């Protein structure tokens, strides 16, 4: 069944691509079918189990099964995949290279599910690479800066993939098996050097995908350069594959190591720095896509920190954030996509005042932003609270401060995002803009509302996370940390989510009614041109919205930080390598005499060193 599902995906991808060539409508239809049909089959039929399908290639057993942990992640992938596929139909209408988009979309969904069902490293790696190049196709789909952004993405992916490849061949040579379970169970049988080397290699591999700090530089450009319908998958699901790997490595490997706690602390701090630095970078962005891209990196930093700390609560928080981040970031990227679709730009400096034009988009963005900022009635708070609790329990106080700083600074870009698109002056230039079609707004609203529901009734998700964590070897956390929407910390503290929600709703309604219904009769809507600007009447073409250098005061404050880009060091390294390569290339002078001399010298050298070579 599992094989069938993957084959349907693969065949569907090719058929969609061909179908799109024949008739756009047929392509759309095939696309929907080949995402939703196998996704439904996956959800309905594939139950948690160790070995569901098995193949042998090259004498290597490829075993496919579904662990509870993978099941949790597969929910994210399938949910986002289905939502985004519905969204993509409208989003991609009238754009170029739709067939390629559909193809890569389906393939990456397949690859992600493949990663999750892989119970051995080889199929893990195969699907990992399929995921990489199908997403690579997406990154360069727009054809902008292909050579720099695309190559950057691919090189970093290859760095990660080859680290993994190296690790897994070493594992195989040492343990004689490619199975994940054998690796984790027999980890102690590895030599001490390999016990350090392999987790580090795998951390690099997964760190690249989950954009941990020094390995993140591909991410902002890759995220923002791929089509928005896919970026949601990219940030929401694809990067979570890195997290999935990190969970496996950290929980199953480093816990068996004496030096493991050091590695985990390092990774946790890297995650913390990622969160903080990416947040600061997000603040400086003037493009919604880039802002969200950096924001995704920051949120992944939280997740990585939670995973690396690895206490039950931290793990719970990280897993919860994995799901919630997929929801709200998916919704936000969809919103940006809708704006891009309707206005043709995503630059804050160009578009503004869409709140009355695109109310549904605004509402879902607002809910998602509140979740992103971690404000109580929505789900982001639950994960952040649990993460802080976990860190405090684990005595990582400075890390708490760092993450707290990151999450406070996140307000800046959250506001920048909302202000940039929806608030400010309503321009006559954008007067024609309409709300995005239903197939775009409904998925994003659904995702945003889900964050709302999960924020108040997180136990809906906790059970699933709980079984995933039991699979990883944690005790059942059920009942210890929450009961009926009350979160307990181990210091006897609690946050009761439902009373909070009711209080907020009650007070909010009271004042909203007070202001709105009392005010509405006497109050008249005036356009945003009618503002108190020293009595001046703004001309039609004058745009008074504050949008250039929006965060300049803050940028000035963090200027020393902004000067030091990691990317610069990489670029310097790349330039140096290119120079070295160029120097090396000149060995081939194109001159026959030189080549003859090479041959003679080579012969002479061999003859001179023959004793050391052959004894």
């Amino acid at each position, binding site marked *: 069944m599992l094989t069938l599902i993957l084959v349907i995906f693969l065949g569907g991808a090719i058929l969609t691509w061909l179908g799109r060539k024949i008739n756009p409508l047929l392509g759309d239809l095939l696309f929907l079918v080949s995402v939703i049909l196998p996704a439904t089959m996956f959800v309905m039929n594939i139950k948690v189990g160790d070995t569901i399908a098995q193949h*042998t*290639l*090259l*004498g290597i057993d490829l075993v496919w099964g579904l662990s509870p942990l993978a099941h949790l992640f597969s929910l994210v992938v399938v949910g986002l995949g289905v939502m985004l596929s519905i969204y993509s139909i409208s989003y991609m209408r009238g754009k170029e290279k739709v067939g390629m988009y559909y193809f890569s979309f389906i393939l990456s969904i397949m690859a992600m599910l493949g990663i999750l069902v892989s119970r051995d490293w*080889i199929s893990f*790696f*195969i699907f990992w*690479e*399929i995921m*990489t*190049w199908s997403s690579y196709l997406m990154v*360069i*789909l727009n*054809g902008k800066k*292909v*050579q720099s952004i*695309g*190559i950057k993405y*691919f*090189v970093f992916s*290859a*760095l990660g993939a*080859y*680290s993994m*490849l*190296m690790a897994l*061949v*070493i594992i*195989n*040579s040492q343990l004689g098996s490619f199975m994940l379970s054998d690796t984790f169970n027999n980890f102690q049988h590895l030599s001490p050097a390999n016990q350090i*080397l392999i987790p580090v290699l795998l951390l690099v591999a997964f760190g690249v995908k989950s954009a941990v700090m020094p390995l993140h530089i591909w991410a902002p450009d890759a995220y923002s350069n791929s089509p928005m319908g896919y970026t949601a998958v990219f940030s929401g699901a694809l990067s979570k594959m890195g997290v999935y790997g990190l969970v496996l490595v950290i929980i199953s490997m480093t816990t068996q190591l004496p030096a493991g706690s050091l590695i985990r602390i390092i990774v946790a701090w890297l995650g913390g720095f990622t969160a903080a630095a990416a947040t600061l970078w997000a603040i400086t962005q003037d493009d919604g896509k880039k802002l969200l891209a950096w924001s995704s990196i920051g949120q992944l930093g939280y997740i990585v920190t939670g995973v690396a700390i690895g206490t039950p609560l931290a793990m719970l928080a990280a897993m919860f954030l994995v799901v919630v981040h997929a929801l709200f970031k998916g919704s936000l990227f969809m919103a940006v996509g809708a704006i891009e679709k309707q206005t043709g730009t995503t630059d804050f400096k160009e578009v503004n005042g869409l709140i009355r034009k695109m109310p549904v988009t605004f509402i879902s963005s607002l809910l998602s932003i509140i979740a992103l900022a971690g404000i109580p009635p929505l789900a982001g708070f639950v994960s952040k609270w649990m993460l802080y609790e976990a860190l405090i329990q684990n005595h990582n106080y400075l890390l708490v401060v760092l993450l707290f700083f990151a999450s406070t600074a996140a307000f800046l870009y959250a506001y920048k995002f909302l202000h940039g698109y929806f608030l400010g002056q309503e321009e006559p230039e954008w007067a024609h803009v309409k709300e995005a079609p239903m197939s775009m707004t409904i998925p994003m609203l659904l995702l945003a509302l889900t964050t709302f529901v999960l924020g108040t009734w997180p136990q809906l998700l906790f059970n699933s996370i709980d079984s995933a964590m039991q699979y990883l070897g944690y005790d059942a956390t059920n009942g210890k940390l929450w009961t009926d929407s009350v979160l307990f910390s181990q210091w006897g503290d609690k946050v009761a989510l439902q009373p909070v929600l009711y209080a907020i709703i009650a007070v909010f309604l009271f004042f909203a009614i007070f202001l709105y219904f009392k005010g509405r009769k006497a109050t008249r809507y005036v356009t945003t041109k009618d503002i108190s600007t020293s009595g001046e009447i703004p001309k039609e073409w004058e745009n008074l919205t504050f949008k250039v250098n929006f965060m300049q005061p803050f940028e000035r404050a963090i200027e020393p930080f902004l000067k030091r880009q990691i990317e610069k060091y990489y670029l310097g390294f790349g330039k140096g390598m*290119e120079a*070295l*390569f*160029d120097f*090396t*290339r000149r*060995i*081939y*002078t*194109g001159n*026959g005499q*030189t*080549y*003859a001399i*090479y*041959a003679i*010298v*080579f*012969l002479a050298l*061999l*003859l001179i060193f*023959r*004793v050391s*070579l*052959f*004894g």
Partner: protein
Amino acid sequence: MVGTPVLFIAIPLLAAFLIPLLGMIWKESVRIVPGLVLMYLMVLAVSLMGHVAHNGPIIEIIAGWAPPIGINLVFNAFTGFLVTLIIFMGLLVWLYSYRFKSNVEYEPARKYFILLMMLVTGSTGVVLTGDIFNLFVFIEITSISAYALTAFYTGRDSAEASFKYVMMGSLASTMLLIAIMLIYSQLGTLNMADVASKIHLMDPTLKAISFILFVVALGVEAEIFPLNGWAPDAYAEAPGPVGAAFAGIVVKAMLYALIRFTYTIFDLSGAFNLLIIIGLLTLVIAEVAAIRQDKLKRMLAYSSIGQMGLVMVAFGIGTREGVFAALFIMLNHAIIKPLLFFSGSYLVYHSKKKYISDIDGMGKLAPFTSLLFALGAFAIVGLPPFAGFWSKLSFLVAAADNDMVLIIALILAVSIVEIVYYMRVVNRIFFFKRTTGLLARRPTFNAYIVMSVLGIIVLMIGFFPDTVTGYIQAAADSLFDKTQYIHSVLTASIQ
């Protein structure tokens, strides 16, 4: 059985001589006869492979002299595998160049196919022969036809490239001859199996010197660093299918000779380390040079050299898995590189200087060719689920089993370089705007077939690698089993 191994040498040689004669009668025959010959040889090779798989190696004795004295041909799983590969490549090259750019006219076509037949003769001879001097002869046949093919476009650059090749080649021949002389003077025999069984009697210094001379001599043709200066020029200046033939036929044959010397004939312990060292050098420097190339064919040429380095490293591992990986890489390389050469030469067909930048935006104009090129590029850098991945994986597994962690790291780092330059080209094809006004050239029908076949094989190996691994495994076993080789040759009798 459809025939005996000697036909692999005899028939193409005969064809080479017959082609001009037949051409006088019917001009089209110069194109058709080689095809027929190669098809027959393909059938022969496959049937012989089947025979070998069941009945063990075939030792054919030429002219009725028993092995230590006479010349014998050895067709076992290993040589059979290579011969099949060579014939298959020859067939594809023939089909592809049936009416290639400069073959349209009668006169160049006649020359071309004569030379191609000679090339096949020499290469199969190199692989099959069991005699060292005979090997030298076949190497000369191969080289000389290769020199001529390099200079096939009678231009200034082609002539220069060919001259470089000739120069290096004659240097190599001299050394080869000296090495052969050394062996003969010491052991009094030139039969490989015989030499192998007596090699321990040889003076260690002379043994090392003669091995070194063999390495240097064969290294020129097998494109090892630093003896491969001729190769980029030759690849770039020769016609596209000839480049493919070099990568798929000549280099394979020469590498075979090198491996045969290393594995079977000589018993030097350091030889494997030498292979690894020169293999790594070749790999690193070739890939590094490839990234800085601005002409497509030169880039492919350097990539080809790099792959050969990788094969050499794999052979140098010295285990059965290593040999398996090496043969697998060879097989993949023999399939993917021609695919790249074929599709690549159509992508830059109309371009004068064959710059990489001339293929910007080709994806729109020539979607099928571009797609195949991309497939080849994805496959050769080892992206799953394409063919290259499995060979790379088996290589890495073999290397890891021997604790070559640093070598693995180095090779993977070089692979990143490889990815960069291949992806740059693929990006240019599909995602750049067309800058030059050059139009795309539609591939001819036979070129379509060749490229499709290759593409399908790439995908097939990618998804079902087990279809080919059986043969490779048998070949590896056969190479590894030195005593069995010696025994089977020396005990062979005239049937």
